[in-house]
């Protein structure tokens, strides 16, 4: 996960954006020029600590950075500054459908650059180019314990993490921007067996869909391998989205020896407990807690509560609208049915106004949709829009009686059919009525129609 920061992990460069010209967000520090030194980005540490707190992690008083040594052209210093044996936090959990997924650690490190090869395949490339815009971008690595049992759970976990990080403002967590990448470790075992099987690690999965597909593929591959008498080799594997399969990258025997040792350019960090306490107090309500409150305080069904609590903006809108006088269940329906799919969010007051207009019968549901759209686009209050357009529903019996008579005169055949016992003819009459006068209150109008039809 890429924490939300203005600058990179160890220098003042702006964090690169997708589409920036290659090597435009770089300086002598993130280029690994001789004599340059890293300085820790406090905002990245803060985002990591907030994440750790939200995941109920323990935050040790002392933490430090280490060097992970390996040479590759996308790694300018020949080592990545990461955290090895004293991570910023450890031993937390994330609630997922009432169950705990244990978090082993959350630590900070820096990202590498990117290689671009001229040609389809690396070994056929005539030229390779290095773009170091991403080099030195802060990354939080969230490591979970082996508590996920299926591709579905893994995806739900990833989605829940993203929601959590967005809620606390620690990361925008946009997968398409590379801000969230997953590296699932997968092993299978016989039903009833306690011992985990040999695992494979899939590298750099960058969409929820790919995560789900890759895990499913890997489970099938390992199962077939074992059933045909083979063994699973501990290795890292890549995922080809186009071919829909995983492929071997590097097995354990050829695993790199990273020669971790404490980063001498950065003194160990001592995390001030007062700072931790302040961050803890400033954390917004987390999705899990909010979901519980939406059911207990507002009586929402569990399904509605999940959908609304998953998005902080929607949850805020819901509570705001109820506070402004909207009925909770109706407000939830409008949010789930109309607001969430469009992503266009009205103010809480406007939504409350709208819900009241519909529930009081002043306008129809269909009219309500139009009013909502216009309100979001123009920023005007629904009741003003209704007044201006004369949208208000007509429930006056005297006015409607004339209309009903008009409809009956225009459709003698349907009237005859109804009176002869074909009850479905009522539908045709109501349809014509709605066409002639959309503002008519359908409930009142149908009562009048039934009365006249005898």
């Amino acid at each position, binding site marked *: 996960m890429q924490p939300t920061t203005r600058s990179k992990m160890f220098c003042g460069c702006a964090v690169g954006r997708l589409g920036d010209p290659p090597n435009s967000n770089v300086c*002598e520090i993130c*280029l*690994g*020029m*001789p*004599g*340059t*030194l*890293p*300085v*820790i980005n406090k905002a990245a540490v803060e985002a990591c600590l907030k994440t750790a707190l939200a995941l109920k992690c323990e935050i040790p008083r002392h933490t430090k950075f280490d*060097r992970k*040594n390996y*040479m*590759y*052209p996308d790694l*300018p*210093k*020949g*080592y990545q500054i990461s955290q090895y044996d004293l991570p910023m936090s450890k031993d937390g959990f994330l609630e997922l459908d009432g169950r705990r997924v244990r978090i082993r650690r959350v630590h900070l490190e820096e990202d590498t650059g990117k290689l671009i090869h001229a040609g389809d395949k690396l070994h056929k490339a005539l030229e390779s180019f*290095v773009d170091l815009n991403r080099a030195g971008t802060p990354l939080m690595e969230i490591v979970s314990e082996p508590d996920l049992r299926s591709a579905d759970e893994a995806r739900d976990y990833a989605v829940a993490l993203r929601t959590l990080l967005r809620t606390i403002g620690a990361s925008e967590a946009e997968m398409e921007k590379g801000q969230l990448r997953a590296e699932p470790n997968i092993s299978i075992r016989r039903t009833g067996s306690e011992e985990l099987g040999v695992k494979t690690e899939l590298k750099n999965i960058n969409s929820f869909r790919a995560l789900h597909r890759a895990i499913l593929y890997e489970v099938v591959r390992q199962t077939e391998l074992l059933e045909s008498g083979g063994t699973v080799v501990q290795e890292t594997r890549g995922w080809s989205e186009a071919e829909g399969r995983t492929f071997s990258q590097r097995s354990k025997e050829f695993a790199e*020896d990273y*020669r*971790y*040792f404490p980063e*001498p*350019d*950065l*003194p160990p960090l001592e995390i001030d407990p007062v700072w931790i306490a302040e961050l803890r107090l400033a954390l917004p309500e987390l999705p899990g807690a909010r979901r519980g409150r939406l059911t207990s305080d507002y009586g929402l069904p569990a399904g509605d509560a999940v959908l609304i609590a998953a998005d902080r903006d929607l949850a805020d809108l819901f509570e705001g609208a109820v506070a402004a006088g909207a009925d909770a269940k109706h407000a939830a329906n409008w949010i789930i049915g109309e607001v969430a799919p469009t992503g266009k969010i009205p103010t809480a007051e406007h939504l409350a106004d709208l819900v009241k207009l519909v529930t009081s019968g002043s306008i129809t549901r269909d009219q309500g949709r139009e009013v909502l759209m216009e309100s979001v686009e123009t920023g005007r209050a629904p009741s003003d829009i209704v007044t201006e357009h004369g949208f208000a529903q007509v429930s006056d019996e005297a006015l409607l009686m004339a209309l009903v008579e008009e409809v009956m005169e225009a459709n003698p055949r349907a009237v005859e059919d109804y009176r002869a016992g074909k009850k479905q003819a009522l539908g045709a009459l109501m349809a014509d009525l709605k066409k002639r006068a959309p503002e008519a209150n359908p409930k009142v109008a149908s009562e009048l129609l039934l009365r006249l039809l005898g």
Partner: protein
Amino acid sequence: MSELTELTIKETARLLRLRSFSAAELVTAHVEQIERLDHRVKAFLRFTPELWEKQAEEADRRIARGDLGPLVGIPMAVKDVLCVRGVETTAGSQILKGFRPPYTGTAVARLFDAGAVMLGVTNCDEFAMGSSTENSGYFSTHNPWDLDRVPGGSSGGSAAAVAAGEAMIALGTDTGGSIRQPAALCGVVGMKPTYGRVSRYGLIAFASSLDQIGPFTRSVEDAAIVLDAMAGHDPLDATSSTRQNDVLRDFDAGVKGMRLGVPREYYEVEGMEPAVKAAIEAAIKSLREAGAEIVDVALPHTDYGLAAYYIIAPAECSSNLARFDGVRYGMSSQDALNITEAYERTRRKGFGTEVRRRVMLGTYALSSGYYDAYYLKAQKVRTLIKRDFDAAFEKCDAIISATSPTVAFPIGSKTQDPLSMYLCDVLTLGGNLAGLPGISVPCGLTEELLPVGLQVLAPQWREDVALRVARAYEVASGVKAEVAPLV
């Protein structure tokens, strides 16, 4: 005007204000001295006329404006590991040939701001790894006191430049003794500050937890002046300290009533030459006569220092030097078939023998399965050595010893035996492992007319103590750093 090349900062500053000569004339005198001697001393790798012209002009303008800064117009040489914007900086290595950093390191930048005038870049052992400057990727530097001998190292070019009167001050770096040892061998003052006192930003790293930048000068006071201008916290170096130290406090207060520790272990090291021992004993005597109380102290883990140092320093260097891969700057092999081969060819061709040896030693020491036995063990020894010093400083205010167990040795005499070369640092590297400030001051000449250096080590952050003792010795002994009598 050859006497202009024999002055100290203090004398120069006074004469510049009296308009006895201009900063431009002072630079010219040094350039003439270089032209006269440097083809024999070979202290400099390259010269920076575009800088010295501009900076001398600026210095004369500052003097005309009444600027009283002590370093305005002072001619300075800079070791080849300190980045200066636009100036080829190679760490004495072929692998960085042609590299011109687009930035100036903090220490050099502060001296530029203080008015110093850069003459050029001085030779050193490749990536500061060595004790004789013979490991330079370019050529060897010669000791101005005897051209057949080494100037020490790794900052040998800087020490030789100051000893030969080719520069009034020079900057070096000290990882295991690389300032103090060449200062001793060239008969000048050299100081390594407390680790964290001077920003390392712009210093091409050898061993990050040990490296410090410091001055070469021809008087103790000059060393204090240069240090004062460089020292202090730098937001670009997270290991630089915010602690203050008034380095000239009690500078001339003498040693009367001070307790000076003499560690027996430092007088019994392997290879201690009798002439060096005799000079140091004479120095102890003169300090006692000046009123110091000489006390015995123990540094029981001294024997393990060298081994620990030669694990920790190579371990850090193996990582620090990984960036020299031929991808972004410096030498680059163009005919390799793949990236691994490109790395191998670039690094085999670009690095010298000693650098390759240390990269391999360090890589080994950090490897999985060996880390605990080597790197971790060495770090534990480092802690024990720090405790030795802590305990010693309970009993004394400063520790005095020889800087180097030997005087300058003949060029080529140790190049075939790395271990004997490593022993050159046996009295200095403890100060690096413990992060202490240390200074080497001239302590007379042997019968062969070769300089001996006296080392003063003080507790962390007490540069003022080291300087005060060194100054007291300078006064009491009457031994002055002087320009070597090269004819």
